[in-house]
């Protein structure tokens, strides 16, 4: 699988994403600078976490107006896979590739911890390596992960299975106490209707080796590889 990682000014998980992709796919990813207007032909473009442009004004807002964004949108339009993790998810919503917005956490505090996620839909490009209903542990680290969309949008997301991941309790219940940021319907990640663009707040790239405390993040990258087979 050929992949590329985009770096915006003050992206800070670009190296982590790059390393994870390199380790799991066995191929060195391309690096895209936010000012590149042309991007290589790849199977996956990853928008990493961080604080692009300091998260000033709104998280992801300035990054979503970068020169590289047009090419990324075109890639998605042609059916190419795009993932956005954390700040990358915020950029995808600001670009309009995914619906809704990510608001300040309801606690108003940055939160870094490991949460339980339930994989609800395993027929997507990004989740097929997991089993349906599986509860996985993944770290989160964000200040603005509180997903918001209007009711109509939420309804569509729910009925189309566009919510592959939800914050749940250890037992797999999407209850309020398992929700780390106030997201509507405990949403941790969403996918576009066509199924080739995914945004999620948790960081799978931080959990791909035992030394990091587990390997629950691997399935996410392995799914994309499976899709391309």
């Amino acid at each position, binding site marked *: 699988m050929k992949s590329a990682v985009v770096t915006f000014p003050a992206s800070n998980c670009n190296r982590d994403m790059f390393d994870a992709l390199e380790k799991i796919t066995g191929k060195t990813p391309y690096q895209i600078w936010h000012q590149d207007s042309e991007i290589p032909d790849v199977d996956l473009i990853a928008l990493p976490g961080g604080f692009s442009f300091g998260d000033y004004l709104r998280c992801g807002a300035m990054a979503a*107006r970068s020169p590289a964004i047009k090419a990324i949108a075109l890639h998605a339009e042609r059916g190419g896979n795009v993932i956005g993790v954390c700040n990358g998810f915020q950029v995808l*919503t600001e670009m309009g590739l995914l619906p809704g*917005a990510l*608001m300040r*956490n309801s606690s108003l505090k940055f939160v870094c911890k490991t949460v339980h996620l339930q994989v609800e839909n395993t027929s997507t490009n990004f989740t097929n390596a997991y089993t349906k209903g599986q509860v996985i542990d993944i770290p989160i680290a964000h200040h603005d992960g509180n997903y*918001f969309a*209007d009711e109509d949008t939420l309804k569509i997301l729910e009925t189309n299975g566009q919510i592959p991941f939800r914050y749940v309790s250890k037992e797999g219940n999407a209850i309020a106490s398992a929700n780390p940021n106030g997201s509507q319907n405990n949403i941790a990640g969403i996918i576009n209707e066509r199924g080739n663009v995914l945004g999620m707040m948790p960081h799978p790239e931080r959990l791909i080796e035992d030394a990091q405390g587990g390997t629950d993040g691997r399935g996410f990258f392995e799914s994309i590889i499976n899709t391309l087979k």
Partner: protein
Amino acid sequence: MKARIHITLKDGVLDPQGKAIQHALGTLGFSGVEGVRQGKYIEIDLAETDKSNAAETVEKMCKKLLSNMVIENYSITID
């Protein structure tokens, strides 16, 4: 010229900051606070000297960058 822009959340969009302020005001003993909404206030100094040109430019700035139309409204004053 100076443009003053108010960016506020649309009705129906939840406002975690406003909610938290309202709660905090309550704990501080302020009663009768029925609602709090937090928005942004941006001041821009422009080289432009024509008011309507300025308004037009700032309108574009809001659409292109300053506000997120999915969740926010904006209003502009020029002086």
